[in-house]
């Protein structure tokens, strides 16, 4: 498995083998994804959807096959419900601008949880600000789980929309989205799921979840940068006004009035990120063909092992100890700044992230300046955890 990911096999600072533990920020890419994109650029590169010539057809076929691969991965009823965007952030903004903003008014409420990523907060703040609607916050417990009772109350009030993550990028908490969506729907509240952190770790079935919208990024699921997905229920997507105007999204353009194309093209203006889409298709197939049980068991084992090893370190405190977690270990030292720890770990070849992880409201809630976060993917091992523990030992010696 590790052999398939070229970026894992390198040293930093001359001779220190890299241990990549920043997978929640972005994952490395398997060779099949890189090869697929290289093939596109060397043999198929051409604009899609409009050409009669061979390259354009090949590119278009590959492009639409990729859309189907993504639809298959998330079990979308139709590939027309897979809208390509630049990334999860754009997907969420798209929903905020075209679904929420035209419907929101001063009496409406949008609910987000206290542990959302900025990308799932700011778009809603902007939509609320533009319309006078109110943004309400679903509170959390200290361990990084949602306060379910408070959430039920919020949903029972007149709520226009719930936007929440599937998995927390800062703490790793897996939220019980299926049952939350059930509850929300019982109150007539549609739900937008930020799936940025789930795709690389969990099987996602948008129909089983009954999600109204589901957003994610390619680069966090072994795919290329610059590409993401917005899945939506057909009728919801079909009801959206156009988002960007331009080539490909139109039926007929005239100065007397323009008519728009059908889904998915209506929401994809301009030349798309063709190489990115095709690469994402390869990543979707890569994920789909994994032995899910084995991968899940392995990831669980590494996470469990990391928890145990880290918990045993004096002066270190795990942040986020929900019973349902995946692949993220956030922690702090009593008396070492995360930045100091991160800097020394970096010199030891350990790529971890430190800081607020784009969840400032969560950090404020937990009264932390930030955390040190080790986030794993299927290619990480117990040995990587051992390297991390050795590194933390060194950090403590240096700052002790």
């Amino acid at each position, binding site marked *: 498995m590790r052999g398939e990911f070229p970026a894992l096999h390198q040293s930093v600072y001359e001779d220190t083998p890299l241990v990549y533990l920043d997978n929640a920020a972005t994952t490395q890419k398997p060779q099949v994804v890189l090869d697929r994109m290289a093939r596109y650029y060397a043999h198929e590169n051409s604009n*899609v959807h*409009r050409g*009669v010539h061979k390259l354009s*057809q090949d590119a*278009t076929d590959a492009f639409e096959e990729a859309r189907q691969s993504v639809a298959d991965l998330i079990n979308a009823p139709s590939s027309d419900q897979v809208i390509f965007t630049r990334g999860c952030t754009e997907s969420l903004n798209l929903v905020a601008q075209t679904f929420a903003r035209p419907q929101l008014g001063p009496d409406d409420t949008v609910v987000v949880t206290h542990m959302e990523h900025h990308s799932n907060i700011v778009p809603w703040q902007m939509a609320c600000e533009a319309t006078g609607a109110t943004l309400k916050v679903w509170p959390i417990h200290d361990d990084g789980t949602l306060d379910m009772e408070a959430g039920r109350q919020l949903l029972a009030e007149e709520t226009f929309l719930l936007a929440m993550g599937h998995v927390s990028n800062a703490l790793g908490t897996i939220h019980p989205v299926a049952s939350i969506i059930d509850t929300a729907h019982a109150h007539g509240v549609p739900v937008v799921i930020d799936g940025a952190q789930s795709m690389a770790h969990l099987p996602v079935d948008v129909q089983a979840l009954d999600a109204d919208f589901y957003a994610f990024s390619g680069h966090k699921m072994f795919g290329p940068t610059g590409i993401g997905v917005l899945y939506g229920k057909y009728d919801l997507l079909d009801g959206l006004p156009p988002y960007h105007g331009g080539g490909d999204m139109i039926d007929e353009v005239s100065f007397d009035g323009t008519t728009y194309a059908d889904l998915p093209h209506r929401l994809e203006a301009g030349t798309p990120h063709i190489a990115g889409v095709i690469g994402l298709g390869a990543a979707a197939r890569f994920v789909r063909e994994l032995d899910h049980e084995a991968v899940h068991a392995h990831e669980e084992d590494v996470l469990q092992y990391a928890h145990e090893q880290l918990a045993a370190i004096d002066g270190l405190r795990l942040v986020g100890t929900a019973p349902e977690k995946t692949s993220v270990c956030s922690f702090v030292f009593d008396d070492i700044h995360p930045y100091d720890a991160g800097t020394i770990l970096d010199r030891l070849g350990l790529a971890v992230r430190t800081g607020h992880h784009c969840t400032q409201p969560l950090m404020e809630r937990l009264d932390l300046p930030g955390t040190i976060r080790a986030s794993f993917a299927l290619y990480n091992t117990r040995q990587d955890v051992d390297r991390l523990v050795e590194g933390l030992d060194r950090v403590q010696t240096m700052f002790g």
Partner: protein
Amino acid sequence: MADASSTIDERARAIVDDFSLFDDWIGRYEYLIEIGKKLPPMDDALKTDATRIHGCQSKVWIHTARDRDRMTMQGDSDAMITKGLAGLLIRVLDDQPPEAVREADLSFIDDIGMREHLSSTRNNGLHSMIEQIRTRAARLAESAEPASDSAVSSSNA
């Protein structure tokens, strides 16, 4: 225009035989253009939004109607190759039971070296033509009541 007693498969096979006489794509395309030219003229009054096949660079119209238990077809296009492709479909599918049209195996298009036109994304409309014809055939097959020509063709809108 086609022999009503032959089945769709028989007609498709005949077309494959015809095309197999050519050993290069130029011959095959010239023959396809011939097929277009031989297509009986379509009444301009039938070239309406209801019969227009969308999603093509060229203009294409296919008019379908019911004649007792059969489905009849006429077609035209302002591009010769598209007209030839329409002609192929009409040769094979005209005057056949709608049930058969709905289920028809049209893989002969691949066999005659016109596979590139089958790409769902080529803006030429063969794919759209087939989709539209099948949809209309399905509607005809399902509608128990005998519909008049005009009723059927206007339901194509």
